[in-house]
């Protein structure tokens, strides 16, 4: 059961989409005015009579990630019994390709008795200038000639290059979700997964999600990964207040799934990219993605070389070297010969290093005390104690139980703890 929770709990009906009432009214009013739709749906949702809405040739849903743009379109199609023809950013969207897919979809009759077809161009602001050449113009042409509803989504449609698109569509803004709503959804998921989640923990996840429900759900799934059934505020604090795992989770996924060197490299330009964190997380997750030792060692080799640049930068402050380090750490780790096919959902674990360091703090303190004591009394360095003396002591302690007792007395550490150090 590797189904991501964002899929598992995606709302199926219009009513279940949370906190976007205004957008729902606009979208439904538009559909009901211009296309065939079930009567009870229209009675309930089509409440707007603005001319601007009723005349629009297409709808462009705009808003930050994870507020429900795509979900809303899926739910709409289901409510009105239309077949959804969807093209998203991971598809190639050149002019030819768009016309081919949409054209074919609209020509072919529906097999399953749908009432009609609805076209969704997802993430139109992600249209690639080179790769998707002519894509934007093609979409406009399709909209102008279309007899079926066309809906688009975008994070930021206000780039001047989307001006023509805005001119012929109705732009509907979806707002960031309130903290309350996010907490509410998280609470429902916890219950349904049989997990006990502290209210404050959910609030903390919601807060750092900044209204991005998808991110919040992904976070929750990460925290409850491996069958854990409780979530406390401490769990969240241990991993870091500002919730780096959300952006880290997405950043890692993008790096590993990048199709080209440049796509992976460009992730470092993202404002939420924190390269120090990235190194720790990449170190942790390379074996999750590259399971075979051959590819794994190539990935580690590249990250290791990147780290040598980081070392040099830290020593000499030659910051102009940073691009080399990042190219190796992102593009170099992403693009590897014989790279395996990646599953749709990869479980990236938290860096165990942080947890181990936190858990072993006491043990380390005891060890340091022992090492310091031996170094002082034997006139040798601490590193010599750790690499040589400790082993001699361990061998001696095996045949003389008094040794541990004496150390225990001298250091004020109990004997059992001393034994674990040897």
């Amino acid at each position, binding site marked *: 059961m590797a189904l991501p929770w964002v899929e598992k709990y995606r709302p199926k009906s219009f009513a279940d989409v949370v906190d976007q009432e205004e957008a729902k009214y606009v979208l439904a009013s538009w559909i009901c005015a211009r296309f065939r739709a079930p009567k009870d749906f229209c009675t309930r949702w089509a409440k707007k009579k603005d001319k601007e809405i009723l005349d629009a040739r297409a709808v462009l849903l705009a808003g930050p990630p994870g507020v429900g743009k795509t979900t809303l379109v899926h739910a709409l199609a289901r409510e009105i019994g239309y077949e959804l023809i969807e093209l998203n950013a991971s598809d190639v969207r050149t002019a030819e390709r768009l016309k081919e897919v949409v054209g074919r979809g609209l020509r072919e009759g529906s097999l399953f008795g749908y009432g009609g077809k609805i076209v969704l161009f997802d993430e139109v602001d992600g249209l690639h200038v080179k790769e998707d050449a002519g894509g934007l113009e093609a979409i406009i042409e399709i909209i102008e000639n279309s007899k079926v509803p066309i809906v688009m989504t975008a994070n930021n449609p206000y780039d001047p290059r989307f001006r023509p698109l805005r001119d012929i569509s109705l732009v509907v803004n979806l707002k960031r979700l309130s903290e309350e709503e996010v907490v509410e959804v998280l609470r429902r998921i916890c219950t349904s997964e049989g997990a006990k989640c502290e209210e404050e923990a959910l609030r903390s996840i919601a807060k750092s999600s900044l209204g991005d429900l998808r991110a919040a759900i992904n976070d929750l799934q990460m925290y409850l990964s491996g069958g854990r059934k409780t979530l406390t505020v401490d769990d969240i604090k241990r991993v870091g207040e500002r919730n780096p795992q959300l952006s880290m989770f997405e950043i890692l996924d993008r790096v590993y799934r990048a199709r080209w060197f440049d796509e992976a490299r460009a992730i470092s330009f993202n404002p939420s990219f924190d390269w120090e964190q990235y*190194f*720790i997380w990449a*170190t942790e997750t*390379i*074996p999750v993605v590259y399971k075979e*030792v*051959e590819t*794994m*060692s190539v990935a*580690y*080799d590249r*990250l*290791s*070389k990147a*780290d*040598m640049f*980081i*070392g*040099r930068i*830290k020593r000499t402050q030659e910051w102009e070297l940073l691009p080399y380090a990042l190219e190796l750490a992102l593009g170099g780790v992403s693009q590897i010969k014989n790279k395996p096919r990646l599953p749709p959902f990869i479980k990236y674990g938290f860096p*165990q*290093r942080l947890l*181990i*360091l936190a858990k*072993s703090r006491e*043990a*380390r303190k005891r*060890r*340091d005390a022992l*090492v310091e*004591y031996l*170094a002082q*009394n*034997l*006139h*040798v*360095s*601490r*590193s010599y104690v*750790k*690499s*040589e*003396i400790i*082993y*001699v002591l361990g*061998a*001696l302690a*095996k*045949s*003389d139980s008094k*040794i541990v007792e*004496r*150390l225990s007395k*001298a250091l004020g550490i109990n004997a059992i703890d001393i034994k674990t*150090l040897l």
Partner: protein
Amino acid sequence: MAELFWFEKYRPRVFDEVVDLEEVKARLREFVRSGNMPHLLFYGPPGTGKTTMALVLARELYGEYWRENTLELNASDERGINVIRERVKEFARTAPVGKAPFKLVILDEADNMTSDAQQALRRIMEMYAQNTRFILLANYVSRIIDPIISRCAVFRFSPMPRGLMAERLRHIAKSEGIELRDDAIDLIYEVSEGDMRKAINLLQVAAATSNVVDANAVASATTMIRPADVIELFNLALNGDVAKAREKLRELMYVKGIAGIDFIRAFQRELIRMPLDDEVKAEIAELLADVDYRLTQGSDEELQLLYLLSKLGAIGKRARQTPPPSKRR
């Protein structure tokens, strides 16, 4: 507690107990007699008596007050030259106790300092020359900068000759009521390569299990004081179990505090013994040298060692798939 370890218990306290190094002793005695001396630089391999001689000198100079007048520092342990400067400054603030007109700073592993740090050290030595003398201890004189060498009286320490080591080991065995066989002495000398501290440790571990120490007892002692946990890690990686190796690595790094370079050294020593093809051994030797360099250059030891482990896994996997060279011939 110190006498728990025989190398400490039988560490010479006065010049007469030191069994060799006659010329060094003669010159140091002269310093004690005249009550004045320059800075000193003792260099030579581990276990050849550098620390012992520095401590003997301190006792001979200050008698019962030697501790008050001596500051022991280890360049690899202190965090940077600034920490060393502060500690020397604090120490030199007070006048020496007893008859000698200066205090003593013993700085071990001085050759592990960068040349910039050594330049700073030189200034520190000059700044406090009024009432302190430095004894610098090093494995390699070539890694000490010239301006420091020219300010010091330099003494070379060589590995203990076989006859003197045997004499000393017999003396310890007799005092501890242990029967020490000749074949045991031969093996201890061979394994320790003239490192007296290592030799005494071997003797002590061997004696811990039986009162008669022969070559067999020494051989099993050698395996007992090997870093077994680090070697286990090496084998896990070679067998391709990188997940388990990673878990082990983290335990050794973060709980036991083993430094990156110590993994490389242990692997390197173990490599000779491994039942591997010589071509594979050569490849691993090259890898170890490479990762040693990466550790000095990089900033994240765990990452560098994970590269080492995964690469060992890949080498091990290929070695298992390739028939041994005897069949290829």
